[in-house]
């Protein structure tokens, strides 16, 4: 049977083109994230955020080629991919049928590279405005290698043990958003609050935040629809579900603010949209558009509580709400997948609780627990290691003056001329 399947492997050029374009769309999300985050910080720190996002794009692209893809996706055992594809050895134009039998392995590799780039970049929101650049580089490299790559293998890799258990994560609710969100929570607690925060700093450039959101939303079509890895009904459905959830979440966040604070805000509607996008990510290929709408509304309600109520109560300084939006959204979406998934949408998936299969919800809970537990412990170790040997936080004086001038010797905006 398997030899028959291998004979039938023929590259589909439409699928290949679709995934290549999707990879380019996901690549654009990292600069999008840079503006999304960059607009939120005080203006003395915007370049540091743009730089961290951009260097993540460069650094992790290289890491992925050298060892990341092999660790995450080579056919190793249940726990890691092993070293057989190191330096892309053996990763060629032929498809690897465990992932897709219609697109080249190289195309799958470059598509997944963009996920490996943006996931560590999401964590930047937690320690923005106070992290030393050199420490950031080491932390990001270690985190990508020892947290993202293994977790990615468990959930998506050939023979991964969580995949084997039946955990469903279409485009990265666990692998991307939960892992980045939990790492963000760890980092924000360890690094401590920013100085001079008694007066909450307002975002210095909201139009940048909106621009970044636009780029992220646009790129997210590649992220979610592209994860179908083929031009088929699952891809089209994921595209529609993604847009629906983002729209529903943006509306609900604005409405919540209107009711609670008296005015709907621009910052609110874009935050809601991102929460909706992050939340629907694991579900997008398994649920109907109407379920996507419900997930979007839930995303805003739950993330709003996380950002506006829980965060102030506990007092941790998750500067740009990397945990509040991505962590909470990712976990919520993974659970929602266990509720709303339907085999009528994607026959390769499983039914969720609302479609007669309550067991799937428990499997999703187990998947999240494993991801949260592993990410938490591994991030603590990596953080402490880097902190002891290199020091994570900039000097207080440098923080006051701003990271742009002190870490990069540049400033974003001139006052004169």
């Amino acid at each position: 049977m398997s030899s028959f399947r291998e004979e039938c492997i023929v590259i589909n050029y439409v699928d290949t083109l679709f995934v290549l374009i999707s990879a380019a769309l996901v690549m654009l999300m990292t600069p999008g994230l840079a503006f999304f985050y960059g607009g939120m910080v005080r203006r003395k720190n915007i370049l540091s955020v743009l730089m961290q996002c951009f260097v993540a794009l460069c650094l992790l692209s290289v890491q992925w080629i050298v060892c990341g893809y092999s660790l995450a996706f080579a056919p190793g055992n249940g726990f890691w991919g092993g070293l057989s594809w190191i330096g892309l050895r053996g990763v060629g134009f032929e498809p690897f049928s465990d992932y897709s039998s219609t697109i080249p392995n190289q195309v799958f590799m470059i598509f997944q590279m963009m996920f490996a780039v943006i996931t560590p970049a999401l964590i930047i929101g937690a320690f923005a405005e106070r992290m030393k650049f050199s420490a950031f580089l080491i932390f990001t490299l270690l985190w990508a290698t020892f947290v993202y790559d293994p977790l990615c293998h468990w959930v998506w890799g050939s023979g991964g043990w969580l995949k084997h258990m039946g955990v469903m994560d279409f485009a990265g609710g666990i692998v991307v958003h939960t892992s980045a969100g939990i790492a963000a929570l760890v980092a924000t607690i360890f690094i401590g609050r920013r100085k001079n925060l008694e007066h909450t700093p307002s975002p210095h450039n909201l139009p940048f935040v909106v621009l970044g959101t636009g780029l992220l939303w646009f790129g997210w079509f590649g992220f979610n629809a592209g994860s179908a890895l083929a031009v088929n009904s699952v891809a089209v459905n994921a595209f529609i579900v993604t847009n629906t959830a983002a729209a529903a979440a943006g509306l609900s966040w604005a409405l919540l603010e209107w009711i609670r604070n008296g005015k709907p805000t621009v910052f609110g509607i874009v935050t809601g949209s991102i929460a909706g996008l992050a939340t629907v990510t694991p579900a997008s290929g398994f649920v109907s558009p109407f379920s996507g709408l419900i997930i979007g509304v839930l995303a805003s309600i739950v993330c709003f509580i996380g950002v506006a109520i829980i965060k102030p109560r506990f007092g941790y300084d998750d500067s740009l709400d990397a945990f509040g939006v991505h962590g909470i959204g990712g976990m919520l979406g993974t659970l929602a997948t266990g509720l709303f998934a339907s085999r009528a949408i994607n026959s390769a998936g499983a039914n969720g609780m609302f479609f007669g299969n309550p067991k799937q919800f428990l499997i999703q809970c187990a998947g999240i627990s494993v991801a949260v537990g592993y990410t938490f412990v591994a991030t603590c170790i990596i953080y402490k290691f880097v902190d002891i040997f290199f020091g994570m936080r900039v000097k207080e004086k440098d923080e006051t003056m701003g990271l742009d001038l002190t870490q990069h010797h540049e400033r974003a905006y001139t006052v004169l001329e």
Partner: protein
Amino acid sequence: MKLVIAIIQPHRLEYVKEELYKAEINLITVNEVLGHGRQKGVTEVYRGVKEAGNLLRKIRLEIAVNDNFVEPTIKAVIKGAKTGETGDGKIFVMDLEQCIRIRTEECGSKAIG
């Protein structure tokens, strides 16, 4: 009537405002300026080209007050802006010849408060 001009660190503005409000001084004008005193500026590098000793961002406050408010104003600014580091800034006090409120055309100390 005096005009108090204070040059302070940007991140101290909120603290200074708070102290001024506590002293019931509610009328201030703020702008962003560049400068440096004893504190040297920071080197900036653009595509390998160094620009040494660049000016630093500061905040300049202008506060027009009646004579009995001069001391409280100075105290409030110091309380809000002082960190003990070089670069905390300066306060200048000068005589103010006239003050006119445009809306009512009132003149002198009545117009300030």
